[in-house]
């Protein structure tokens, strides 16, 4: 099965390259998983192409990795599944830490709504055109974004907030 | 044994209070209730006469009055709901569309 998935995935990469030569920045193969790195400005159009032309109808997951202090520090991961083709790929886009803005994928997959809200809540990445971008897991008045690497595991407790970086929000 | 007059006086008092409520209350529902009170006062007089004369006609009239009151309540409360919906108030003063 695994090889089969991989073959499909390479076809996907070829299709995307043929569709737009700038779409695919990098392709990573690791343990049978194909990661397609795209530029964050092209994310939504690539996603649309994946959904419409390549039948990736299910957005399985969306999450974010904070590679602080590497810059661009945020790596958004979109796990796509094509139910008809039995294929999985991962779309990755790198977002800079100073102005984490990226186009929302809600117009492509409605299911991205809460996933992106979660990323916004815990990582502090803004999604343009998101219909309802509010904190979801944490209280509305929470300060900071806990899944960032510069946010301590035990929270800020009694440390005055002004002494800590990344707390402007 | 209760003299007939006692019932009639009670009926008159209730009717009078109903009239007072009708004039002084501002809430449409309460005004409507005061009408019901007046009808009740009349019913009391009917039953008292019926029992005094030993004839049941009075009670039959009471039944008719009750039926009319029920019909009136259904329509009247429907109208009240409409008023509330359109005017956002149950105050009789606010229902003044026809007032110059």
């Amino acid at each position: 099965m695994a090889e089969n998935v991989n073959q499909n995935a390479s076809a996907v990469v070829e299709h995307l390259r043929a569709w737009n030569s700038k779409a695919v920045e990098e392709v990573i193969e690791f343990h049978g998983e194909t990661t397609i790195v795209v530029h964050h400005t092209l994310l939504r159009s690539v996603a649309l192409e994946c959904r419409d032309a390549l039948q990736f109808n299910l957005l399985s997951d969306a999450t974010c990795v904070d590679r602080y202090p590497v810059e661009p520090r945020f790596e958004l991961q979109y796990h796509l599944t094509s139910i008809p083709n039995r294929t999985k790929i991962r779309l990755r886009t790198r977002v800079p830490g100073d102005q984490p803005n990226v186009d929302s994928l809600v117009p492509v997959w409605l299911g991205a709504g809460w996933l992106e809200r979660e990323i916004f809540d815990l990582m502090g990445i803004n999604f343009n055109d998101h219909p309802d971008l509010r904190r979801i897991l944490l209280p509305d008045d929470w300060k900071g974004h806990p899944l960032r690497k510069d946010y301590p595991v035990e929270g800020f407790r009694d440390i005055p907030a002004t002494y800590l970086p990344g707390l402007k929000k | 044994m209760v003299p007939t007059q006692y019932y009639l006086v009670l009926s008159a008092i209730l009717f009078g209070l109903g009239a007072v409520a009708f004039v002084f209350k501002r809430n449409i529902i309460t005004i409507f209730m005061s009408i019901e009170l007046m009808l009740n006062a009349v019913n009391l007089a009917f039953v008292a006469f019926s029992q005094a004369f030993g004839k049941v006609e009075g009670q039959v009239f009471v039944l008719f009055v009750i039926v009319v009151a029920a019909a009136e309540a259904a329509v009247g409360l429907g109208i009240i709901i409409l008023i509330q919906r359109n005017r956002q108030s149950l105050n009789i003063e606010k229902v003044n569309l026809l007032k110059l």
Partner: protein
Amino acid sequence: MTTSVETATGVKKTMVLNMGPQHPSTHGVLRILLELDGETVLKAVPDVGYLHTGIEKSCEDKTYSQATTLTDRMDYLNPLGNNLVYALAVEKLLGLEVPKRAQYIRVMMVELQRISSHLVWLGTHAIDLGAMSVFLYCFREREEILKLFELFAGQRMMTSYIRIGGVALEPPAGWRDRVGKFLGMMPSRIDEYEALLTENRIWMARTKGVGVIKLEDAIAYSMTGPTLRAAGLAYDNRKVFPYSSYEEFDFSVPTRTDSDCFARYMLRIAEMRESLKIVKQAMEKISDSGPIKSEAAGIIPPQREKMKTEMEALIYHFKIFTEGFSPAPGEAYVTIESPRGELGCFIASDGSAKPLRCHFRSPSFINLQALPMIVEGQIIADVVACIGTIDIVLGDVDR
């Protein structure tokens, strides 16, 4: 938060009802703001996060094997499934092969877990609709499954039984009899629930045609699991992307097409029967002896006996439990079929002994976001039925 619809005249005709976070039928601490017109729901806004425990953040501060115990606490009706998806992800990251015997044991345990989860679902859903007895019947049988877990793992709920590289313990003596007894009992018990509900007029009136989700909506909202299958698409990770040797098992993926609460009820009943079949096959496949963990020095703790005789084993043991192991940098994403849908685990490693990022795709969280679409326009009693059949676990939603 805008929750009230004001009509053009600036007239408020509706009532906002705060359903939850403490409410008998929100299955935990879910809060839904309902805007009602009479009993009709105009707008529903789910509000989650009351049970947020920051498990993903905590994982980043634990070694890979320590984080296993955290996964138990996410979806508290499916701890073994959570263990499994985490173990599979770490194994993928390490490129580790798990012995067949351990895989079959994993399958058996996860399927038992699926039955128990569906039992809790059926019971709570039934009590939401007022059928009190079914609730207690379901918990009676769930108790049997929990006893089996206790037998296998020494724990009833938070078993942490499935570990990286295999399972924690050798199956106990006499387990075949116990599981066999359960398998013998369960089909008639499922018939019992069906006798109380399936053809009950009130039950049908409450569930048929209620909470219909169109297939394209379900896919667009990324809904998976029974909710998607009840809409007519046979998407099941066990069949589509088999893991843990599921391809060797003979079972079918039940689907329904009407996609209402009744369909989801019938579907889960059918799934319980399928799971029983899988447990039976797994029992036959599990040999009486053989390894339950893969052999990988420095990753899998050595056997107790070896530790007492071999210096090397003792050193590995010490190293594993003090500093852990460090997979190569990279990412792994694994999905399995949990009772609620596609349960995913994404782990990013930066080459250290602790995960750089550990993210769980929890099916309840993603299925729940379609709730407003399902309930708007229905009446308040149906909201309860819809929440019930989406089958959310708030521990899974909030993590």
